[in-house]
C-alpha cells in the first residue's frame, strides 16, 4: 500500500515544485541516496527512490520537506497495537473470541501490517492461536 501512492506522487510533484524546495529534495537525496544509487542510476529511478524513503520516513519528522512540497495529501491513520492499548501481558489461547479478529476467514494468522499489532504481541498472539488450533478451538484451515 505504501509503495503505490509514493511513486505516483513524486513525479507529479517534482515538476510542479517551485525552485526553492527542489534543492532541498536534492540534498536529501544525497544524504539518503548513496547506497541506493549504487544499485542503478538515472533520473527517473533516482526520483522514485527519493519518494520511496520519503513516504515511510515522513512521519519521522526529518523528511518533513517532501510534505511541504505538496506531496502526501492524505494521512494514513496510524495503527496502534490493540494489546498495548489494553495493557495485555498475556494472551489467553482459551478466549477464542479475542483471537478471532486476528485470524483470516480461512484460518490464517493475519500479518502485523494488517492489524497493527506490535512485534511482541504478535509473537504472543501467534503462540496463542497455534495453541488454540491444537485443541480444536480454532481451525488450521477451513474445511470445504
Amino acid at each position: 500500500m505504501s509503495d503505490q501512492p509514493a511513486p505516483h506522487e513524486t513525479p507529479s510533484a517534482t515538476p510542479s515544485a517551485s525552485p526553492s524546495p527542489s534543492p532541498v529534495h536534492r540534498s536529501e537525496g544525497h544524504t539518503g541516496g548513496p547506497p541506493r544509487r549504487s544499485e542503478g542510476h538515472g533520473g527517473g529511478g533516482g526520483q522514485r527512490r527519493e519518494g520511496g524513503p520519503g513516504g515511510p520516513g515522513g512521519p519521522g519528522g526529518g523528511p518533513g520537506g517532501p510534505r511541504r512540497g505538496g506531496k502526501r495529501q492524505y494521512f494514513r491513520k496510524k495503527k496502534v497495537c490493540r494489546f498495548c492499548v489494553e495493557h495485555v501481558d498475556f494472551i489467553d489461547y482459551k478466549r477464542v473470541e479475542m483471537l478471532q479478529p486476528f485470524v483470516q476467514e480461512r484460518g490464517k494468522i493475519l500479518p502485523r501490517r494488517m492489524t497493527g499489532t506490535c512485534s511482541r504481541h504478535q509473537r504472543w498472539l501467534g503462540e496463542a492461536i497455534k495453541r488454540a488450533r491444537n485443541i480444536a478451538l480454532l481451525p488450521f484451515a477451513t474445511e470445504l
Partner: protein
Amino acid sequence: MEANMEERVYDLIFICRPATPEDEVNKIVTTLEHSTSEHGGKIEKTERWGTRRLAYRVAKHREGFFVYMVVKSTQGDLIKELERRLKVSDAVIKYQTIRLDEELKRQQKLGKHRERRASRRPRKQAPGAPPAPQPPQQQVPATAAE
C-alpha cells in the same frame, strides 16, 4: 530430582466424545485427580465447558465435550501419567497440556513493572506524551510561514 524442581503450572484441556455420559466424564476427572494427588500435585480448578463445536473434525466428530483443568505439580512425571491416562481412555478424543508458569511469571513481572512506572508517571508522561502531538503543531506553522 523430585525435590529440587520448582512448582509448575499446567493447563490441561481434554475433549470427550459428545455422546459420553456425564458419569464417565466424572470418572475420568476423578481418576485424574487421584493420580495427581498420588504424584504430589494439585488440581487448582476444574471447568466443564460443555459441548462445543470443534473447529475441525476430530475422530469423525464435529462437536466435543470440553473439560479444562489447571494442574500444579513439582514432578514432570505427573504430566506423563495424566497424558497416558487420557490417551488410554476411549471417551477422550483430544487432549493438550501446556506449561504456563513461565508465562504467568512474565505476566506478573510486566504488571509489577507497569505499576511501578504508573507510580512515577506524572514526571515521566509529561515529556513522553507531548512529543507526539507537537511535531504536527510545529509543522503546520512552518508551512504557513512559507
